[in-house]
């Protein structure tokens, strides 16, 4: 994303890391297991450039938890996994045996809670740091065939999208390492608001 300077991206990365740390703490409370969440990288791209930049997310099914928000900035956040990773994550968190590659209603509800915790922690941290307020919708679970299909089939994701922040994240639970993505889509007008907020806290 040309509009964001490396410094602005560093600031966002730090905020994301704080939020992810809170999410890990909340997940530890629930499971009693030591869960580490790592953020190896984040990327900021325009919606149009998304399929080209993340070709590996275009092929294959995606299980996702989506939660939209509005307020000082508007958009949607989604936690994305390949279905087998989602099933593995739910199984390891609930201490159940992995029985199927996809999720049934109950297990998708569990993924929804996990996604809710992570997205709330992430965006809650952004709100705290940026001193802004957001209203959130309830999370929804959705399966899609690739990233483009997910975005185009979700009104909350595709409406007037401007910038997309893609956060690669890795769950380290017990001896397992499960990788997923957090996708935060900001509407066009929110992009500038976000830059202004980053600029404001950078000056502090």
């Amino acid at each position, binding site marked *: 994303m040309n509009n964001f300077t490396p410094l602005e991206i560093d600031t966002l990365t730090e905020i994301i890391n704080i939020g992810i740390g809170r999410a890990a703490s*909340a997940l530890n409370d629930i499971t009693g297991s030591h869960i580490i969440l790592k953020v190896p990288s984040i990327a900021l791209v325009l919606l149009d450039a998304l399929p080209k930049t993340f070709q590996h997310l275009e092929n294959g099914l995606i299980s996702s938890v989506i939660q939209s928000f509005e307020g000082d900035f508007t958009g949607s956040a989604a936690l994305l996994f390949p279905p087998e990773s989602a099933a593995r994550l739910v199984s390891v968190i609930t201490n159940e045996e992995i029985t199927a590659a996809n999720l049934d209603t109950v297990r998708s509800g569990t993924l929804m*809670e996990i996604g809710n915790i992570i997205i709330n922690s992430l965006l809650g941290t952004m709100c705290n740091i940026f001193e802004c307020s*957001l209203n959130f919708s*309830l999370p929804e679970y959705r399966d899609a065939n690739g990233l483009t299909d997910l975005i185009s089939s979700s009104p909350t994701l595709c409406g007037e999208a401007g910038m997309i922040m893609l956060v690669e994240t890795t769950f380290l639970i017990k001896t397992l390492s499960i990788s997923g993505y957090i996708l935060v889509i900001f509407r066009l007008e929110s992009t500038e608001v976000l830059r202004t907020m980053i600029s404001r806290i950078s000056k502090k």
Partner: protein
Amino acid sequence: MKPATDFSFESSLLDQVPFGVCIVEKGYTVVFWNRILEEWAGIAQGDICGTSLLERFPHLTENRYLRRLDAVLEGGPPVIFSPQLHPHFIPAPLAGKRLRVQQTVISCIPPQNPGAGHRLLITLTDMTQPVEQLREISGLREQALTELAERKRAEKNLRASEKRFHDIALSSADWIWEMDQQCNYTFATDKARDILGFHPEELKDYNFLDLLTSQEKLRALETFMPAVANRQPWVDLEAWLLTKDGRQVCLLFNAVPLFDDNAALLGYRGVAKEITDRKHAETDRENLIKELQEALKNIKTLRGLLPICASCKKIRDDKGYWNGLETYIHQHTEAEFTHGICPECMRKLYPGLFDAT
């Protein structure tokens, strides 16, 4: 005791919804508790409104609940407590000591008046039936997967067993066969072609008795057929069979009876070994023994005590007659006599001739 709520119209609506609804304000004081929750938890509105939700349900003070509830009460985003991770947000007993499984959503109600704090809207959906159905399906699925794995393992073993049998049948010098309860051939290995000249498929048109020689058919009624009638194994039963080109071959049969699950006789499975050469050799040997026995009968031998005259050397026979030595031996042995003169007699009888030689 406080009134149920100060928003009577909304509360009357929330009493009609098919899910549990509870509203708490700062300090987790319950300000609304709908009819469904009264029914599920067995706690009346009037008894819980105005009291602390946390005191009523102390498990909600655990970090796994309270931190997230606090965040919503401070105006944070809604949170979900899923049926798998938090199945009993408000414990609601069912028959058989079970508890209702719930999905709980907590949302923030912004302050309605300046100075008022946020409230929590807690909605609980009963997920007991779907969860139990999924558990049942999951159990059935597990059972099906286990059975499938067992069947695959059994099929693998069966294939290995069939291959083992096939390899043994192919490499065996004996003829392996199967027949039904009427003794019709139903299976034969290729060895049948070497022994009888019939293709294994051709044999399916024949009964066991069909291939026996006419003499053997009668004998089989006393050997093979009683075993079949008594559903007993065939152990080392011999039979002479006719080959496709009319030769006679002798086979040694060993077989076990086959039964179905109801113990009804299905037929026999066994092996037949060709012993024609051995039988011929045995016959030859028996003939030779007979010939030798005959020959022995014809050999005359002298045994026992012979009464002989100490003077003239005549021998007395069984009838009391005295026979000359030559006559007696000639009569009682196969020996013949040729006559000559020994040196001593020669000296006595013909001294002149003896001296000259």
